[in-house]
């Protein structure tokens, strides 16, 4: 039982990182109605900029964090311009394919920058794990969790308390209506992208600081962890993204502990497949099927 609770604690901590990635996907999907496969790779590129500073100049972790976020935001803006702004609406699939092409580009850019397979990434803190009764808390995990909670609060405030957040929500709700209200839709999309990339940059830094190493594969990893967490919870819902991230974290840690490393990802994918088949809208998504919705539209 102690093991189980300990695993749950670890899972929630790791899951908070996934939740941040999922929030990024959810916001982009809400605003643009398109999938950005390049989300993970742009974070990875930011992390590589940070690593470059760390490897070349032994930069401090805080500098690396800032470089990661700035790099991720710049890469994200580039992705937005090329894959989403330049390709007109209605061509959602073209945007997805384009974001995949840019992914390949970003990955090679990272390899050109740092040609080895693996690079060290600076840890945020070097303190020993905190002990609470029979349980251990890794300080990196705790930092990740606290930062994630703060970021979620910030995102929530931005979305529900500011004018910009209002326009983001308006665009997600109904693009045409938002445009009629005088909202500059293109600008909203651009800045939503920047915001999301910044969140991703922070999440990427925290995850990598825990792992203490970075490879170009991080792009693939982050994209699919974020997508999975989002789909588990339900697309386009902020609480869903958080719940999905936490569930993914807990399931991974539990299956790693009880079944072994080979089963860690396997059980996560199995759970995802099961959730999608049984409850196609995700756990917190609305269960209204596409056909019914199409019918309503026609009526």
């Amino acid at each position: 039982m102690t093991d189980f609770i300990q695993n749950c604690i670890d899972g929630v901590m790791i899951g908070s990182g996934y939740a941040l990635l999922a929030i990024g996907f959810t916001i982009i999907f809400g605003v643009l109605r398109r999938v950005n496969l390049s989300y993970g790779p742009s974070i990875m590129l930011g992390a590589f900029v940070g690593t470059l500073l760390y490897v070349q100049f032994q930069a401090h972790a805080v500098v690396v964090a800032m470089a990661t976020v700035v790099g991720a935001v710049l890469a994200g803006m580039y992705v937005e311009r090329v894959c989403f702004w330049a390709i007109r609406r209605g061509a959602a699939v073209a945007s997805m394919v384009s974001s995949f092409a840019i992914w390949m580009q970003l990955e090679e850019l990272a390899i050109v920058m740092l040609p080895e397979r693996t690079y060290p990434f600076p840890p945020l803190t070097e303190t020993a794990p905190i002990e609470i009764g029979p349980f251990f808390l890794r300080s990196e995990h705790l930092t990740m969790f606290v930062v994630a909670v703060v970021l979620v609060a910030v995102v929530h405030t931005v979305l529900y308390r500011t004018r910009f957040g209002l326009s983001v929500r308006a665009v997600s709700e109904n693009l045409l209506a938002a445009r009629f209200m005088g909202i500059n839709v293109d600008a909203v999309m651009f800045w939503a992208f920047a915001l999301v990339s910044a969140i991703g940059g922070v999440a990427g830094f925290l995850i990598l600081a825990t792992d203490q190493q970075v490879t170009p594969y991080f792009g693939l990893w982050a994209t699919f962890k974020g997508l999975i967490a989002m789909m588990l919870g339900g697309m386009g819902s902020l609480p869903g993204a958080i719940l999905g991230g936490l569930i993914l974290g807990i399931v991974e840690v539990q299956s790693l502990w009880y079944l072994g490393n080979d089963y860690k990802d396997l059980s996560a994918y199995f759970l995802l497949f099961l959730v999608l088949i049984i409850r196609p809208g995700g756990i917190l998504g609305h269960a209204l099927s596409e056909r019914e919705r199409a019918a309503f539209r026609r009526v």
Partner: protein
Amino acid sequence: MDDYVVSILSNIGMISFLALSAYLLLLTGEISFGQQAFFAISAYLSGIATAMWGWPLWSGLLLGALAAAAAATVIGVLTLRLRGLYFSIATLAFAEMVRLLFVIFHYQVVIDGEPVGPDGAEGFRDIRWVFENNISVTEYMVIIYTVLVIVLTLFFLLERSRLGSIFRMLGEDTLLTEMQGLNVIRFKVLASGIAGFIAGIGGGFYAHFATYLEPQNFSVMLGVHALVYGLIGGLGTALGPLIGVGLDIGFLEAIRAIQGYRMIVFGGLVAVLLIFMPRGILDEERIHWFRLTWRRWRDAKR
């Protein structure tokens, strides 16, 4: 032709099957991230059939492709309710499950004092049927392309048939298809099964070409590439995905000179292409235009 060119061309041929498989589902309006699963299932099974059970290549290929079709049919039934991104992610989850299952899949028999068979993450070595039967790489390439041409011909026949129209109709609007009195469920499952079969043919060829399989070969990257080929080449004709494959593998080999930067160049080119041709190079409109021009030219000559 030297062996290098032959191996590149064989690769293009084998991946074309996977691209055609993803293309068929794209016609019915579904974006699948998971066609590599059926490629993998068939690769492993046909490899097991020839290397471990001593079957000839043809029956091994057929067994692999049929198993892939069966798996695809089951997945088709399970994912019937899913649309759009949900479908894509469900197929992705399935494909990753298959890949990870092959990581823990051990099944070996001892042949000539050597253990043969899939050994989890260590991979599946010595699928040597092609080598043992003295088939040269060039001959093997010819076999691959013969089958590819047959499949392509069937695709062209499909596009002219009622079934082809139904598939395209499904892609346009499921509800309207249903209102034509067509059994949407049956046609969706059928499309999924056929797509699985086509991917399976490619997988079987791949196993005997590579002689060595490991689960990592069938990662999501393979599936996303296969999907993207059709979307770059265009959804107007079955030649579209082949153009995509040729562009990717052929073009990348051709610009080896700028090694290290070629994905930057290629990725940028694809992104620019998609800005001007969001539905791919040979999209429906362009194909229609070609047909009209051809007819006008033919009539004028008469």
